[in-house]
């Protein structure tokens, strides 16, 4: 009965080699979010989708892109990963309104 699924759970990539992380949801929520979390710090919002409407945070590097082909799926693309991009990447979903977010288990990205 998993609600927000992230694949893979662990990803190792080389410096500069593009990588894609995926997220899917069974909640039929309108809103999907991508967060970056480093070393048990507060999650940092990278961007979110409200349906197909993409909203980028002002301080999200251009190196990070996202796609949402349909309601259920959302992808995070890192075009040229640097060592500083090693982190846990969290996908979350919510309904519209003052609703709580449902998080996936995260993908831990290692850059070698």
């Amino acid at each position: 009965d998993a609600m927000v699924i992230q694949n893979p759970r662990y990803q190792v990539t080389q410096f500069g080699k593009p990588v894609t992380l995926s997220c899917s949801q069974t909640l039929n929520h309108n809103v999907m979010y991508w967060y970056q979390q480093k070393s048990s710090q507060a999650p940092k919002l990278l961007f979110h989708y409200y349906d197909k409407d993409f909203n980028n945070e002002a301080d999200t590097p251009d190196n990070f892109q996202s796609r949402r082909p349909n309601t259920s799926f959302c992808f995070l693309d890192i075009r040229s990963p640097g060592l500083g991009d090693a982190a846990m990447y969290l996908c979350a979903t919510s309904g519209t309104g003052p609703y709580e977010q449902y998080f996936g288990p995260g993908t831990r990205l290692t850059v070698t």
Partner: protein
Amino acid sequence: AQSVAQPEDQVNVAEGNPLTVKCTYSVSGNPYLFWYVQYPNRGLQFLLKYITGDNLVKGSYGFEAEFNKSQTSFHLKKPSALVSDSALYFCAVGPGGFKTIFGAGTRLFVKA
């Protein structure tokens, strides 16, 4: 500037004792307030939220939180701590739209 403060990096409590994890916020208007818990190598998990109404909010796993508008606080509480409550706790505020501001997190250690 909108912000959430969790003044304690770590809280230590003995099993069976009451616990409090503190949170204060600085947001204009009437924000929505949330608590999330994160276990190692997992995503965040929603515990409870305050939208409006009764200042004492009850949530999952026996947790509750008290909203205090005059002190702009939203402290998380539990009458009797369990070892399994040991985790990282995040306070969050939704100032409006889809933006959520997370606190830096408080690590809770419950000793047997």
